[in-house]
């Protein structure tokens, strides 16, 4: 589905991503874990076309999208749930969801998907007329995920969906991610909560100072001593 080859990203003279390569297979959950500043968010922003890479390729179903504009990328089915949720606070919940379907023209399909999102997140339905800025952090995260689902993604990029949420909500969010994946959406997940991320991932990559230093199945990395020491606090 998604293949990143020798990606290099620079901010001025600073090399934030130093030639990383990884792959997200069809229907998989793949996670990038790493400490703050390792380059996780930069990687996702580059894939979404918000940041331009210095060199390297980003292949979405074998098509290089590394120079494409974000709106084209979204149209071809790659949708991101950004870090910090970034819901439109001054719009209602429903308007946020409709904005998620901005690239779609099939009115009937949009309506159907809106109902599906409301089914998955009953809290959003209860509050559909409320301004998104008045929602709690967890609700905003659900809205951000629901909004991304409205774009009918083939692959969904998620940047720190568990950030700032209570342990109970974190578990809920992760079970939602699993569900979405089971319904056929490929997922590339970036997390600082390595334990949770690894427990649901088919494959995982460890990012450190802009390079991939380790990769393996979620289970392998959970057991790896290096990962335990550095990211799992054990």
């Amino acid at each position, binding site marked *: 589905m998604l293949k990143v080859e020798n990606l290099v990203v620079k901010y001025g003279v600073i090399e934030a991503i130093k030639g990383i390569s990884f792959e997200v297979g069809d229907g998989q959950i793949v996670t990038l874990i790493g400490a703050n500043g390792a380059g996780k968010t930069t990687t996702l922003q580059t894939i979404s076309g918000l940041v331009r890479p210095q060199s390297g390729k980003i292949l979405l179903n074998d098509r290089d999208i590394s120079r494409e504009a974000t709106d084209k990328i979204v149209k071809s089915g790659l949708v991101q749930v950004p870090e910090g949720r*970034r819901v*439109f606070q001054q*719009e209602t919940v429903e308007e946020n969801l409709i*904005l998620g379907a*901005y690239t779609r023209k099939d009115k009937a399909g949009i309506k159907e998907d809106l109902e599906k999102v409301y089914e998955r997140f009953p809290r959003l339905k209860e509050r559909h007329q409320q301004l998104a*800025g008045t929602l709690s952090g967890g609700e905003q995260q659900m809205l951000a995920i629901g909004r991304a689902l409205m774009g009918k993604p083939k692959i969904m990029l998620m940047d720190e969906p568990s950030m700032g949420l209570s342990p109970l909500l974190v578990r809920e969010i992760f079970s939602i991610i699993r569900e979405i994946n089971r319904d056929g959406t490929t997922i590339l997940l970036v997390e600082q909560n390595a334990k949770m991320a690894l427990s649901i991932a088919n494959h995982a990559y460890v990012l450190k100072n802009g390079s991939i230093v380790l990769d393996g199945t979620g289970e392998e990395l959970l057991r790896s001593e290096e990962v335990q020491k550095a990211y799992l606090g054990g």
Partner: protein
Amino acid sequence: MSGINQFLMQLINGLNIGSIYALIALGYTMVYGIAKLINFAHGDIIMVGAYVSLLCLNTGMPWFLACIVTIVVCAVFGVVMEKLAYKPLRKASRISLLITAIGVSYLLENAFQLIFSANPKPYPGFITLPNIKLGSISIAANYYVTFIVSVVLMVVLNLFIQKTNVGKAMRAVSEDEGAARLMGINVDNTISLTFAIGSALAAIAGILYSNCYSPINPFMGSLPGIKAFIAAVLGGIGSIPGAVLGGFILGMIETMVKAYISSQLLDSIVFTILILMLALKPSGILGKSVKEKV
């Protein structure tokens, strides 16, 4: 004329100039909302609109055609201005943008002075409807047409922004450009469209203004432009209803000051309002200060 009639006349004057300010302020506020840029050249679009319509009318073109040509020319002009002057600076600091905007304003004023000379040119007003009599006062066509056209435009603009997909995209870009991109919104096109709409409104303001206040000159847009900017700040820059409210409030204050206090002190009083507003409530009457939720 009795005191009450005099007051009513001033009220009508205030609504007239207020609606022109509101139309211009809408452009300021929309561009600010989307591109985070105070486009100081915006007032000069009024002047461009006045001259373009004058040229059209002088060729013998019927007035409605002249209006359409003027609106289209100014809209395109606004888009070109954005692409040439502001887009290359999208990632530059705000102060560079601000200075560029002032530069564009001077460029326009002086270019038009070169082309048309600084001599004022009489404007053949074409609003020839009869006056309306309200009791003992009569309202000239220029005045009520300006008011009605402005109010209709504001209502249409509001519907456009609230109801259409493009309008929703504009709101989204205005709140969070990055997130809007991630929705698949083409931000460049949205910014261009904003400049086009703002400039079209300024063109209409220019035509209405010239009808009320002939003759026209290359610097005519400067002061109304600044006043409209004050109106936008007063109402809360970035807020559409704020721009309308600010425009009418400013127009009203101006006329009342002119009539009852002193026409010489007029501009000092108006600018004092700007300073007070910026000092006491910089977000304006209807502006919101958004807080981030963690």
